[in-house]
């Protein structure tokens, strides 16, 4: 325990003995407190001081070098690496995933995110398990599936309709490609010039990782920092488009006055700079983009099941808060449930099976994914928010799609066996075509 503490202090570089360093690291107020071990140490110190100094100071110096560079090249960093095995990483050549290439002819091809979209996607993190795959194979790319083509046709139809009519939730078994399909939708809409609000991990909104304050005289709570972060993300993703839209009237956001005709990007800037105004900025922003018809809006929420179950925040009575008590979540729930609407736009959400604790039984029952006994009492506070949602099931890979992915993995050197038909069949059948299991089977062989 002590060595971990010492490793972080600048005392490392001195040539003091271990005991002297330990003494120096202890705060002054405790320095005079005599313990039995201190007495024993003082007695033995005279004998052991001399030989101990050199050994320990050497070991500390060596450790400092080893921590810096990679372990396999050894301490000091001067050891050569075996050139036979260390090769430069070559990104895989893939075509771009554009509205023109997301067609039936390209089903089974792996297409990368366009260069215009990648900086926008970099504003928010990728979904957890997908990001591990993207770190392994660069650049980030996803396969075009039958379900992609049909879903994007649906989203394109929703371009000219109110969002209350297109509230879709992607469901399916664990690892079947819901988050991936959502990512493709986000990329497609960004390329097509929509305003996109992408929330990759709605769980972080609910698991009490952000500070929350009670709003006076109400039962609601606000999360200032979270709202400010979200406002900043939206601004960075949609900067050029938001310059074209202006506010329709004067409004007050927090302590600030926003005049009529302010660009929406300037409005969001207010929320970025003042986190306590961010919630009001967000609400005004959503109202403004919903009121205009020129540019459609996409709200894409991943891990949406955490919006339909009690949060990990506590009220003043010590009870768990529902998502409707958090103002930012309630704002999004209004749009997801259809209580508020964009004049042109769509709401697409995806459930996540990553954490079992985040599953929402209410959502699953309402969408028809799960059946429970009719006598089971579902939460009456959460149930109304789930009405009117359409469920789209994301299936496992078809053989054609899996073959395309298999060839892509081979090109990306994820596995080094020969890409033969028996090997492909082995991986495809043992994983049942489940995308995540197929990746594990190819990459790890288990």
């Amino acid at each position: 325990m002590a060595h971990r503490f010492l490793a972080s202090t600048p005392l490392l570089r001195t040539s003091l003995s271990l005991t002297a360093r330990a003494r120096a690291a202890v705060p002054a107020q405790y320095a005079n407190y005599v313990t039995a071990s201190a007495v024993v140490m003082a007695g033995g110190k005279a004998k052991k001081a001399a030989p101990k100094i050199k050994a320990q100071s050497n070991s500390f110096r060596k450790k400092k070098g080893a921590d810096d560079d990679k372990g396999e090249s050894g301490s000091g960093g001067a050891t050569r690496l075996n050139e036979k095995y260390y090769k430069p990483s070559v990104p895989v050549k893939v075509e771009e995933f554009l509205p023109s290439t997301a067609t039936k002819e390209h089903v089974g091809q792996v297409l990368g995110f366009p260069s215009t979209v990648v900086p926008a996607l970099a504003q928010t993190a990728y979904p957890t398990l997908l990001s591990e795959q993207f770190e392994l194979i660069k650049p980030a790319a996803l396969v075009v599936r039958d379900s992609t083509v049909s879903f994007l046709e649906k989203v394109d139809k929703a371009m000219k309709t109110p969002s209350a009519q297109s509230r879709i939730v992607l469901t399916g078994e664990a690892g079947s490609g819901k988050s991936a399909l959502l990512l493709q939708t986000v990329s497609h809409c960004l390329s097509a010039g929509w305003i996109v609000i992408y929330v990759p991990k709605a769980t972080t909104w609910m698991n009490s990782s952000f500070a929350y304050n009670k709003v006076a005289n109400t039962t609601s709570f606000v999360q200032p920092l979270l709202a400010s972060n979200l406002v900043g993300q939206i601004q960075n993703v949609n900067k050029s488009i938001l310059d074209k839209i202006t506010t329709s009237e004067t409004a007050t956001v927090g302590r600030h006055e926003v005049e009529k005709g302010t660009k929406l990007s300037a409005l969001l800037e207010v929320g970025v700079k003042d986190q306590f105004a961010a919630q009001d900025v967000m609400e005004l922003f959503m109202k403004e983009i919903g009121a205009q018809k020129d540019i459609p809006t996409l709200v894409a929420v991943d891990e949406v099941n955490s919006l339909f179950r009690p949060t990990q925040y506590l009220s003043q009575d010590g009870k768990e808060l529902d998502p409707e008590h958090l103002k930012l979540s309630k704002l999004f729930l209004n749009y997801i449930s259809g209580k508020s609407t964009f004049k042109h736009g769509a709401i697409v959400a995806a459930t996540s099976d990553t954490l079992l604790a985040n599953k929402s039984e209410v959502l699953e029952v309402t969408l028809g994914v799960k059946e429970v006994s009719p006598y089971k009492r579902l939460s009456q506070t959460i149930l109304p928010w789930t009405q009117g949602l359409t469920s789209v099931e994301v299936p496992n890979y078809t053989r054609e799609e899996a073959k395309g992915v298999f060839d892509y993995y081979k090109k990306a050197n994820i596995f080094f066996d020969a890409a033969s038909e028996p090997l492909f069949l082995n991986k495809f059948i043992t994983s049942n075509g489940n995308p995540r299991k197929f990746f594990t089977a190819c990459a790890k062989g288990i």
Partner: protein
Amino acid sequence: MLRSLTRLSGFSASRIGFQQPAVARISIASFHMGTRPNAVSVSTSTATSPSTPLPPPMAASIPKSDISTTTANATTAQGTDAGPVTGASSEQLGGEEEDKNTQDDAESAASGFAEFTPVSPEQARSLTQNPILSQLVNTIMKDGKKARAQRFVADALLEIRSRTQSDPYHVILDALELASPILKLTAIKKGSKVLQVPTPMTERQRRRKAIVWILEASDKRKGEKQLKDRLASEFLAVVNGNSGALVKKNQLHKMALANRANASLKY
């Protein structure tokens, strides 16, 4: 055995502290048959790459399996030294990628169990079918938790791949070859004295020793919490030439040299 030890002494006298190249390993076959393997030569190039393949331990006639012949590629190492036996085992890595030379195939095929368990090409790197990888998995396994051990090995292989952008299977093979000692010291009592006698080991025993040393060395790594990271770092350290496992191997070889006189004793 004596001849092998003199080779070892002549070698290490001049190159103490360097990597022992593959040449220093004398196979058990030559010991039994009393001949010198003709493929052994001193490699003065990078000390970290094994040069020539070992002849197989037992030149018994093994029936060629139908499984390996049907799916074998034409580019496998058919033309290397020991014909039918190496052929059957090298086909397990048949269908190898374009840039791998035949030397690698034959080298990796010259392991103890390969000849006896014919494997189809798509199972060449399988954690369950490949004898070397399954031995690695079993050595890591504790309390019968095989799936956990398989996960560790699979994750370590992926970690090696992401750090080096090359085939992790060959890295592991190379590391195991480099870290495996060629003999062990058996203690025997001659009168009242305890003498250390250098005795040969089978391929599997050698490999196990290498695996155990690599695992022990990986446990000493600070800063990497997960076994997969430590294991990957350790395999790469062996291949790069600085690992505790290599130190242990060299120590054992030195002690064997010191006790080489006891090798001729009968017990």
